[in-house]
């Protein structure tokens, strides 16, 4: 599996009347061919900004690339001209948006909308494009494709509309598919269908997927690897098992214990206290320190680097420093960890890999 996308030390700011909002403050991650990377975090943590910057969809008048690079197949997207970018956007990298109600054009037939990228990028004739659209509609599970081709978005239900959006995104067999909360607006049964569809299509055309969501259940279902974002940074990254069964960052602990499990007893849910940091004036030390019951003095003074737990698992918390005191994670997390340590016996090695 080769790397298809590499994001290095990305910094993005927005200029507002109140001042500069540092939305992304040094994000690093990579995406391998054919894998699904889930990015989770609260609203305002920078998930959507990160992915929009990969598509270069951020508004020009108030956003700014401060530093860093986004390498797509070795080429830096941030330095491309708009013209070069247009060849990538919708063809090599495409996106599924959260709300299928607003991401389709209500005045165009569904068929025409799916045809657009085909005519634009693949230079197909209208006749060929139509044939391909009907193929795509069948691929995403829309029955009576020939009739549906001529219909308008309002004649489709929410789940069907999201399938249309997926069909548009897949029209040119993209190498990367970015799905920004694609199932948040849908019912559980429809959500299950859409997730199965996406996994199925991924197998067929070997696309890499970046999946943004705040639903940890969905993450457990689709992801190979998970990146947890907080305050414009990735605070923990690892395989799906490492994040769910051996989480190391107190924020990940909080996220996991704030969800009730179906076998939960009648105890109070853990709620992460306080609110996300104000990125107009980002805190000096660890952005999570103010809400973190495990915070130490150093958390308020210095940002933690990424500590390595395994080859695939990294977390940015001072608790992993060799000199840090041993702490007890919340009960819900300990239950999960027990399961993890029964399966693997490797003791985590602690070393600093990157100074952020």
């Amino acid at each position, binding site marked *: 599996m080769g790397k298809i996308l590499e994001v290095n030390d990305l910094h993005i700011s927005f200029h507002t009347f109140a001042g500069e909002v540092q939305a992304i403050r040094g994000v690093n991650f990579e995406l391998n061919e054919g894998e699904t990377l889930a990015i989770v975090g*609260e*609203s305002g943590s920078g998930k959507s900004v990160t992915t929009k910057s990969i598509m270069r969809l951020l508004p020009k008048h108030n956003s700014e690339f401060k530093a860093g690079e986004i390498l797509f197949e070795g080429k830096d997207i941030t330095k491309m001209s708009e013209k070069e970018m247009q060849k990538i956007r919708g063809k090599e990298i495409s996106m599924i948006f959260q709300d299928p109600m607003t991401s389709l054009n209500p005045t165009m037939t569904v068929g025409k909308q799916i045809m657009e990228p085909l005519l634009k990028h693949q230079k197909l004739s209208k006749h060929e494009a139509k044939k391909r659209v009907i193929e795509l509609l069948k691929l995403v599970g829309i029955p009576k494709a020939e009739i549906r081709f001529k219909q308008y978005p309002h004649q489709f239900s*929410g789940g069907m509309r999201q399938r249309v959006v997926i069909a548009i995104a897949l029209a040119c067999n993209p190498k990367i598919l970015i799905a920004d909360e694609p199932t948040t607006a849908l*019912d*559980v*049964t*429809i*959500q*299950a269908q859409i*997730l*199965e569809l996406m996994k199925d299509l991924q197998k067929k055309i070997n696309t890499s997927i970046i999946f943004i969501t*705040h*639903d*940890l*259940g*969905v*993450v*457990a*279902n689709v992801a190979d690897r998970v990146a947890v974002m907080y305050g414009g940074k990735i605070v923990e990254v690892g395989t*799906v*098992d490492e994040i*769910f*069964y051996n989480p190391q960052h107190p924020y990940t602990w*909080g*996220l*996991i214990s*704030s*969800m*009730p*499990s*179906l076998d*939960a007893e009648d105890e*109070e*849910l*853990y*709620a*992460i206290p306080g*609110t996300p940091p104000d990125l107009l004036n980002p805190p000096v030390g660890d952005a999570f320190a103010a809400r973190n019951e495990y915070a130490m003095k150093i958390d308020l003074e210095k940002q933690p680097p990424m500590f390595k737990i395994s080859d695939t698992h990294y977390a940015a918390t001072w608790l992993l420093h060799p000199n840090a005191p041993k702490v007890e994670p919340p009960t819900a997390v300990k239950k999960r960890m027990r*399961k993890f340590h029964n399966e693997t016996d490797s003791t985590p090695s602690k070393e600093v890999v990157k100074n952020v």
Partner: protein
Amino acid sequence: MSSNEKLLEIKHLKQYFNKGKANEVKAIDDISFDIYKGETLGLVGESGCGKSTTGRTIIRLYNATDGEVLYNGENVHAKKTRAELKKFNQKMQMIFQDPQASLNPRMKIADIIAEGIDIHGLAKSKEDRMNRVYSLLETVGLNREHANRYPHEFSGGQRQRIGIARALAVEPEFIIADEPISALDVSIQAQVVNLLKKLQKEKGLTYLFIAHDLSMVKYISDRIGVMYFGKLVELAPADDLYNNPMHPYTQSLLSAIPLPDPDYERSRIRKTYDPKIHQYADGEEVKMREVAPGHFVYCSEKELKQYKALYK
């Protein structure tokens, strides 16, 4: 927590939209259930199944097509004078899904919360009114400085707290919460759910909790009702419903929820529901029948026997 005293009885409630026209919609099609004092009844189902309509019809935001809603033995939908309605409105309150849309952007928080207090004349003086607002804000975890601000100055979770404070302002007994946490982040959801639970304990409130997030519903509810196309298909104590789902639709709904557990997700098999499997004969009576104590399923006599045999 919950007693056996019925607070609310819903009997053969029907709500049809565009009645008698070609595009008639049977949003609620003959449902009956009770809500006991002090309990939380969860209502789940897909969008369009009529769960929100049920909530809104109970509180008389819609006039029912047919059937009765008895609150403490009194029919909510009977002809009432304004004064009678007002008295009833004070006992029953609602929390809405979208905290952005349900607060008037031009009103200060103090006035939003005190609107009910003013209408029902609960405050003796201006000072008393403000004191009530302050104590409500503190109850829901905000502070008194927030009273003079406008809704746009708050985050989603805070706005939902204001919505809860507004519902509590008139000292109701029964609160209908229509997807109160769907619009919030996971960590904020936990805060709001904990708050609702705490308030229930302190004030002895009764909740009708409408949602589609089944894991939260299970967590907060004592009993859960499952709706499908305007009908209640299963009603059971929360644990019982999860351990022994009887109706095939409930089974399909439960099997569709992704849980934050990768091992479970790898082995989860989703069931689909096809209404055709019932094959009800003509004239066969299909209604709510008791499979186990307190566990009701919408089924025929024949199915009841099958379900009873399957029940663990």
